[in-house]
């Protein structure tokens, strides 16, 4: 009993401070991954709850990769749940109101991402959006670096093919 008591303290631990600082990045990644603001924030909320429950299991190391790993696992579980429902087919029509898609480029990249296989979308977002190193992305996805490289390469090729086939204004974004 006595051994359990210290955990009751609502202390601002290093993990909690780190978690709080990473919430904006988790939201950004979740939004890009799920393309729906509400779903994305649900995902972040579940990630935070899970992380705090497992706080005592975090043995140092990189907090960001740990949190992103939790988020990806939750997202995969969520998708498995959705995949059993027959209605989950239309992904291109998601166009949340109030999002900056009016210039066409935002919607275009969204559509391109939506067409990628899940693991390719994940790795591209980890590297391109979150600026993770290949090693960190490999850790988050739980695969060797070589797999990260080949997924990234295929993701970029597929996105390029999609966008060229679509006569997109993406190039102008530069």
């Amino acid at each position, binding site marked *: 009993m006595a051994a*359990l008591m210290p955990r009751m303290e609502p202390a601002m631990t290093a993990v909690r401070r780190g978690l709080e600082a990473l919430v904006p990045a988790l939201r950004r990644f979740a939004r890009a991954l799920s393309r729906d603001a509400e779903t994305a924030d649900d995902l972040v*909320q579940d990630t935070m709850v899970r992380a*705090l429950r497992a706080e005592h299991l975090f043995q140092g190391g990189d907090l960001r990769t740990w949190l992103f790993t939790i988020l990806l696992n939750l997202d995969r579980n969520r998708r498995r749940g959705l995949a059993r429902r027959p209605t989950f087919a239309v992904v291109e029509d998601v166009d949340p109101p109030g999002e900056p898609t009016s210039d066409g480029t935002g919607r275009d990249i969204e559509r391109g991402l939506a067409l990628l296989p899940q693991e390719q979308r994940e790795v591209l977002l980890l590297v*391109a959006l979150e600026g993770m190193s290949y090693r960190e992305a490999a850790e988050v996805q739980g695969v060797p670096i070589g797999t990260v490289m080949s997924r990234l390469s295929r993701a970029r090729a597929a996105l390029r093919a999609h966008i060229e086939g679509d006569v997109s204004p993406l190039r102008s974004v*530069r």
Partner: protein
Amino acid sequence: MTDAPVTEEELHAYVDGALPADRIAAVESYLASNPAEAARVAEWRAQISAIRARFGPVADEPVPERLQLDKILLRASGLRRKVAVAAAIALMLGAAGGWFARDFFNGESDREIARALADAAIEAHRLYINEVRHPIEVRADEAHLLPWLSRRVGSPVRAPDLADEGLKLLGGRLLPGPTALIMYEGGNGDRVTITCARTKREGQTAFKWRRMDDVGALAWFESGLAFVVAGPAERERLDRIARRVYSAYEAPDRR
């Protein structure tokens, strides 16, 4: 080394800022003499810019209230609840301090004790059935599950076969008390727990039914042991399960 042919990996590393400094010149001269490759690399850069332009601003939005740390801490108060549950169970079962528990039990009726015990077990049930990663400490397929719990509880702990109820043994964990918590899972993900601990109390009681929202529990005392079966609040089914548990402990090899 710096003259080695440029690889596909290096092109990606170049775009992602992960290329070793001593290869940058080689990659850049390769791109200068290969317009098609240069176009490909430019397109990758454009993809990165588009992704960042589209989703980058999300990180600048104010964090919604429900994602603020203090709100989440309330939701994740599993830790605090865990302590509360542990305290309640230890109190009920008296293993933490025999004299205190005896006094406590003396002042209460069977019904009140069973109710408090059931409440504590329902809390424990709720807490651990919602755990995705660590609902149990020791899995059912580990041979030491029951010997370990029995040793800690100080009395043989059993896990009756509940396949007839569509339940498969997941495993167990030890709660303060010491109390054994055995968890079963049904095909549709519903979970049923059996909580069992030694108590100073002699004699036996009838099954006491307790319900909190969607979780129901049956609690009883039998020969110095306290039992609670908790699960989805379907009285008849839990009744059948409780009887199974009761019979399992009645087996002749019972100490």
